[in-house]
């Protein structure tokens, strides 16, 4: 066969078509199975998918409740307190200013009551968690029964890949022995040791005993609501259906399962008479 330009183009074209067809077949073959309990996939939704809704309308700026949520969690789970030592800090649930928590949203001329507002942050228990994919020992994995991103501290070898993978900074590494920095260890829950990564577990040990997570339990007015996203009757689903809620860095495709209601606090009393509403607005925006 003479190597004419015409023949070359014919073969090149055929190869391209073949390659495109082949890769389509491969892509179909390796499509992720999708979590049965998850959402965002075409798979039927079965079983619970636990999620949390944090109602920012109900949190004040200098709220004791923020501190109570954090200390309830940290006391229950023996989270060490390193004070101002940011390098050693262990975070399960903590606060950031609203703009920092949602910096990917690049809010401009943000509503005044949200500017600099302390916002509770914790592990998002993503439906598509990047941290579990990089763990070489399966010390962290997504529990298929309810979607919690679990930690097995027995197995963690401290490689910290998961810390790099997590786009939310929800994972912390124990650079030193945490024991001396725990004021009064809770004997019912283990501490961690040096060289281990830790994070929030949605209080799976409390859920197993039919209790709500520690941070939810201290909230008396549904400031934080916890429940099953796959149950249309659940409180979380009802809130999400009625209110505008945002998630952190949704564009990354991790499907975070902690939602933040960012509506105007006025919506809390929207059924009240106009006079009450305007009063409340002034207070809230003060």
């Amino acid at each position, binding site marked *: 066969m003479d190597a004419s330009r015409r023949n070359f183009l014919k073969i090149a074209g055929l190869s391209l078509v073949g390659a495109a067809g082949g890769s389509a077949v491969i892509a179909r073959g390796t499509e992720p199975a999708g979590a049965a309990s998850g959402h965002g996939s075409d798979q039927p939704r079965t079983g619970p998918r636990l999620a949390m809704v944090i109602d920012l309308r109900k949190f004040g700026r200098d709220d004791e409740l923020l501190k109570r949520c954090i200390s309830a969690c940290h006391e229950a789970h*023996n989270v060490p307190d390193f004070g101002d030592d940011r390098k050693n800090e262990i975070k399960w649930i903590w606060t950031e200013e609203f703009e920092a928590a949602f910096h990917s949203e690049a809010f401009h001329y943000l509503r005044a009551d949200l500017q600099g507002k302390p916002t509770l942050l914790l592990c998002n228990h993503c439906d598509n968690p990047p941290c579990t994919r990089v763990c070489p020992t399966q010390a962290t994995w997504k529990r298929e029964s309810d979607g919690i991103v*679990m930690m097995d501290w027995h197995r963690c070898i401290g490689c910290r890949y998961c810390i790099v993978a997590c786009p939310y900074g929800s994972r912390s590494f124990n650079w030193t022995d945490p024991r001396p920095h725990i004021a009064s260890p809770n*004997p*019912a829950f283990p501490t*961690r040791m040096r060289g281990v990564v830790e994070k929030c577990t949605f209080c*799976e040990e409390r859920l*197993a005993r039919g209790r709500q997570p520690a941070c939810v339990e201290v909230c008396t007015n549904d400031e934080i609501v916890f429940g099953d996203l796959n149950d249309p009757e659940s409180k979380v689903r009802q809130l999400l259906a009625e209110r505008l809620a945002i998630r952190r860095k949704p564009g990354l495709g991790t499907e975070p399962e902690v939602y933040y209601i960012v509506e105007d606090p006025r919506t809390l009393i929207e059924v009240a008479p106009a006079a009450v509403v305007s009063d409340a607005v002034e207070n809230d925006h003060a």
Partner: protein
Amino acid sequence: MYDTGKIVGGLVIFVVLMTSPLWYNALTAAPAEAPKLDQPPNGSKECVEPRDYMRAYHMDLLNEWRDDVVRNGKRDYASTANGRTFDMSLTRTCLDCHSNKAEFCDRCHTYMAVDPYCWDCHVEPKEAP
């Protein structure tokens, strides 16, 4: 071979000296004292499994408990010994009875020269004053 007598004699002396601790122990020492383990302070007489099994295999049982609780989300242990159901928890179930860790866990572990890392993380009960 030169100096056969000296070499063989030296070898005999060397072997006798090297094995002298064995001879000494075989002739004089009493058998090492087995550790005496403290009974549960709360007076409980019944463990999750029979005593002989627990003595030999408690470490395997604890590993199974760990995997069941952490990885499989299973928390109830049906005892084969007495049909009761136990919470699979080192600190809540085991140490509820064996609250005397120093006289129970440590005494035998020291005797056996094993150093389990349970207590690196799990919080041991405070010793009764």
